[in-house]
């Protein structure tokens, strides 16, 4: 029964909220995350290999299992990292115990809401869960009491709420289109029911519904014209949180889009995939523009999230077994690499005290281990081969070529190379030269390097090999897509 999985973060949030001294909060937070990971394994295994778990309120098939795995892994990494990150901030007196309690409890509530999004069966409940994630993360974005953080939180809240309202309108229209076929029964918004009857939905309503969904959830997923909140929220939020936002929150919104995309593609073949391709390309173009002239490190990483969300949308838009496998693998690879890069950025910002990339010089000499992580992570995030993101882009490119859209493949290559150039230039010029004098060399904390090593190793291994367990898991999702769309 999946409630147990949801119970763990709730309990950890309460425990963190109530405990008084600092050590307890850390222990509860990390222990809670790890227990959640352990609890999730059997459910995901069952969902991947035995078939979807369909209880009264919850519906967990292989697609949601992938997202559960990502949420669980990244939250574990973030909680371990934020322990060390905040210990440093506490020594500098920026954080009070109250803030710490506030931070860790909100972190686990945020995880709970994200788990809800991917487990729940009915689209309405999914919408409510997404709205809840916005509300939970609004406070995390506005965590620091500075005016910029406030401004970023307000913009995040308003733009995402508007987006989600439009998404609700889309869901209502989907519901309206299904009323004609199913009648008004309680379950006509459940995905399992809708997916079985997807091809008889009223096409006109489904088309308008998907437009609202892609605009609404696209805002949450950071697709191009609606991405404007993303760089502000990520640059002002505490770094572990911006890692969580980039790696997991955007994916949950993409999960919502995918659910409706499956329905819409069955009802009106070709419509939703061309929209996904359009928004994917727009995101790549916007990301390229802003990465080439980026000055702030975390804003650059935020725009790289826009880029990778664009690539994922492009992958699903192109369709075909190759591109879908590529997009799924890209989701996994992107969350791992982006968290690694945000952790690296966190170390750099805490050491240099600034986010301006032109003031950060001589990383190799100041903090060699983080420098290795950032250089390899930078190469990975830019999509160079021995790392996992390249395999994702490779599969999506082969999907595009297999489906015969050569112009799209050409534009894709051009944009990716442009972003590769911009990203690598910034990262490698940060790590060259000599640091400004008076900067003590050496790492800030030891514990924070553990999650970074794990992530770097995972990204490298996934880049070179494709273990069977992952290939079977992603294969089952691809079969799900094929049988719905193919």
């Amino acid at each position, binding site marked *: 029964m999946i409630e147990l999985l949801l119970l763990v973060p709730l309990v950890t949030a309460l425990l963190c909220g109530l405990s008084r001294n600092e050590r307890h909060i850390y222990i509860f937070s990390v222990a809670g995350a790890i227990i959640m990971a352990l609890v999730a394994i059997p459910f995901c295994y069952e969902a991947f290999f035995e078939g979807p778990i369909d209880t009264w309120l919850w519906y967990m098939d292989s697609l949601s299992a992938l997202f559960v795995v990502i949420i669980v892994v990244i939250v574990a990494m973030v909680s371990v990292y934020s322990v060390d990150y905040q210990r440093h901030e506490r020594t500098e007196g920026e954080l009070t115990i109250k803030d710490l309690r506030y931070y860790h409890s909100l972190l686990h509530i945020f995880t709970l809401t994200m788990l809800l999004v991917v487990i729940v069966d009915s689209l309405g409940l999914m919408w409510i869960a997404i709205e809840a994630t916005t509300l939970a993360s609004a406070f995390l974005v506005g965590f620091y009491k500075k005016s910029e953080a406030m401004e970023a939180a307000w913009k995040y809240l308003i733009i995402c709420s508007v987006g989600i309202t439009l998404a609700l309108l889309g869901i209502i229209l989907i519901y309206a289109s299904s009323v004609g076929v199913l009648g008004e029964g309680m379950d006509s918004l459940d995905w399992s029911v809708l997916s079985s009857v997807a091809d008889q939905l009223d096409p006109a309503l489904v088309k308008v519904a998907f437009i609202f969904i892609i605009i609404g959830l696209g805002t949450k997923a950071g697709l191009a014209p609606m991405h404007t909140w993303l760089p502000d929220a990520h640059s002002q939020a505490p770094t572990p949180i911006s890692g969580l936002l980039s790696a997991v929150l955007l994916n949950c919104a993409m999960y919502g889009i995918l659910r409706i995309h499956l329905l819409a593609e069955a009802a009106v073949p070709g419509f939703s995939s061309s929209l996904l391709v359009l928004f994917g390309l727009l995101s790549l173009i916007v990301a390229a523009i802003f990465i080439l002239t980026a000055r702030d490190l975390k804003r650059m990483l935020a725009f790289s999230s826009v880029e990778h969300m664009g690539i994922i949308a492009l992958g699903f838009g192109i369709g075909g077994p190759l591109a879908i496998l590529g997009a799924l693998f890209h989701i996994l690879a992107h969350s791992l690499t982006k968290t690694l890069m945000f952790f690296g950025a966190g170390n750099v910002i805490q050491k240099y005290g600034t986010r301006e990339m032109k003031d950060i010089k001589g990383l190799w000499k100041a903090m060699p281990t983080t420098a290795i992580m950032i*250089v390899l992570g930078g190469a990975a995030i830019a999509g160079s081969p021995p790392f996992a993101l390249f395999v994702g882009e490779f599969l999506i490119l082969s999907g595009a070529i297999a489906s015969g859209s050569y112009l799209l493949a050409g534009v894709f290559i051009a944009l990716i190379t442009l972003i590769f150039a911009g990203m690598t230039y910034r990262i490698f010029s940060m790590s060259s030269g000599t640091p400004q004098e008076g900067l003590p060399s050496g790492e800030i904390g030891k514990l924070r390097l553990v999650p970074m090593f794990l992530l770097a190793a995972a990204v490298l291994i996934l880049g070179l090999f494709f273990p069977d367990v992952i290939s079977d898991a992603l294969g089952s999702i691809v079969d799900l897509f094929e049988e719905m769309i193919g």
Partner: protein
Amino acid sequence: MFPEVLPTLLLTLPLLGAFLALVPKGENARVISYLCASISAVSGAIWSLYVLLQGTESYVLPLPSVWGEYAICLDSFGALILLITSLIFASVSMYSLFSREGITARGASLFNLFMLSVVMAMVADHVLLLLVAWETMSLTSFLGVWGNREDKDTSAAWKYLVVTHFGAMLVIASFIFISLESGEVRLSAISGVSSSAGTLVSATLIMMLVMGFGSKLGLLPFHIWMPELYGRAPSAFTALLSSAASNVAVLVLVRAIFGYIGVSDQVTTAMIVMALAAVTALWGALQALVQNDSNRVLAYSSMENMGLILLTLGAAMLFQSYGSSEAAAFAIMAAMFHLISHTVFKSLLLMASGTVRRATGEGNIEKLGGLARTLPALSAVFLVGILAVAALPPFAGFASEWAMFKSLMHAEIITDPAIQMALPLAIATMALATAIASVAYLRLYGFIFMGRPRSQGAACPRPVEINELFPFLPMALLCLLLGVMSLPLLTQLASSVSPLVGLTSVDVVEGWSINMSHMGGLNALGLSIVLAIGILLTFLAVRSLGKRSLARGDTWDCGTQLDARTQYTPTGFSQPLLRVFNKIYDPQTTVSEEPRPSTYIRSVRFQQNLPEIFIDNFYRPLVSGVIFVSTKAKKMQNGSIQTYLAYLMITLIVLLVVLR
């Protein structure tokens, strides 16, 4: 014999070496890592010899990849290139071991990783393995050549990374198309995709492959990274970059064009490739003549040599399109022979110039001179390299350049006269390029080792110990051997190249001389023997005239006291040719006179700089254009929440209205 051990040794030892270099502190760990690298190189050489004797070997690696199992396969064609590259790896690892230059943890581990990726790319039989290995090679070499990470190093190395990445994306796209078109994932199973893909599509494929691999070889539009990088990078990595990386590029390019895609009638593509290669060769030679840094001269010389190789491959495509596979086989064989000899003498020269740079602390040849007297052994080795690269008879460069010239002399195969002009023009550009390049090489040797030292560093250089010269001996010997005993290598090349163009066997070698059927042959061994006898006879004849008396006097100085400044400088040496090709260089010369107290004495400053044409009117406008557009477009994120919501609403309204 137990064949499996060799490839496993070849592929796993570098990993162990890289691990050893990084994890344990202390210098002997790095020495062991270099030893691992050289042992794996030696096992690679033995394995390729084994394959040359026993025939193709292929293994499936137990590692799963996205497109099925990775696999490696080594056929006789690849074995030859792997043999020569392993020898180069062994001697370069010895070089960086003895010269203590690459002894840092980073240098040792990256050397091992680079070697692993090069070897993996050469033996890869799986599409994805080849592409991943190919780009890991450029990533590891980027990290290796990043030098001591000053800002200038980063911009030079970054240009290299971005240009090769763009090239790699082209290669990836074309290989994806090839494997999808043929439905195969194993490279050895793919052949003749052009028959099913049509001529226009295979023409674009070939052009993409040539431009993709050209970015690594220094083909014209993509050559901008080469000179700057060679000037700033550690010499072990430049040696590897110019030899091992180019070997992989040309090997995979030839296999892809002639094997996987198959050339049926690609006359226009062949002409474009030949034109591009010819202009690259000429441009490389002309620029090599005016560079003042020894590594930059060698960078442009690599560009020129790669231009010649691509020119001959273009000619091979032309012959193949006109149906004469035998001439195409001879052209490919000549190109690969030149590639092999280029690997040897270029890495020898780069390592030697690295030693010169470390001994004198000076890279600029304007400040060197007179090193032959203080470092005689090094100058002898450098001379062997220079004679080989300038294609003078007994050495490797001569035999391969001769073969390239002969392979171009088959104009009668081409039927329509308009295309026939291509070959004589190709020969003209090749001859001009080699002539100008030999001037550049002579200038390089002459002004480093001859005359009087022009700087304190050159006057008393750090003495070069014996073990530092140790890696040069096998290379110099190889230069001579390849030149003199080129026969066995050519027979092997001929037999391994012919299946590529669909022939069972091509008899380009008769008796003792390389003889392209009727067109006159070269007996390299005989020629060198006659030359040696000639020199010996003159020596004996002159000695028989009795004891010679040798006196040491001053150089002829017409009465003025000679010092470091009263002798020709490299810039002066290349002025006449610079004036001959004035239009191409269009130098900006500024002559300024400072007023001096006495009216008779004037001090005049002569300052000349040569614009880099490609950077000034192609890359710089491109980059500033992109930056201009993106700064303009950045206004979009102007911070006001109202505009952000307006974007949302406008997209919604537009989509709803348009897609009604």
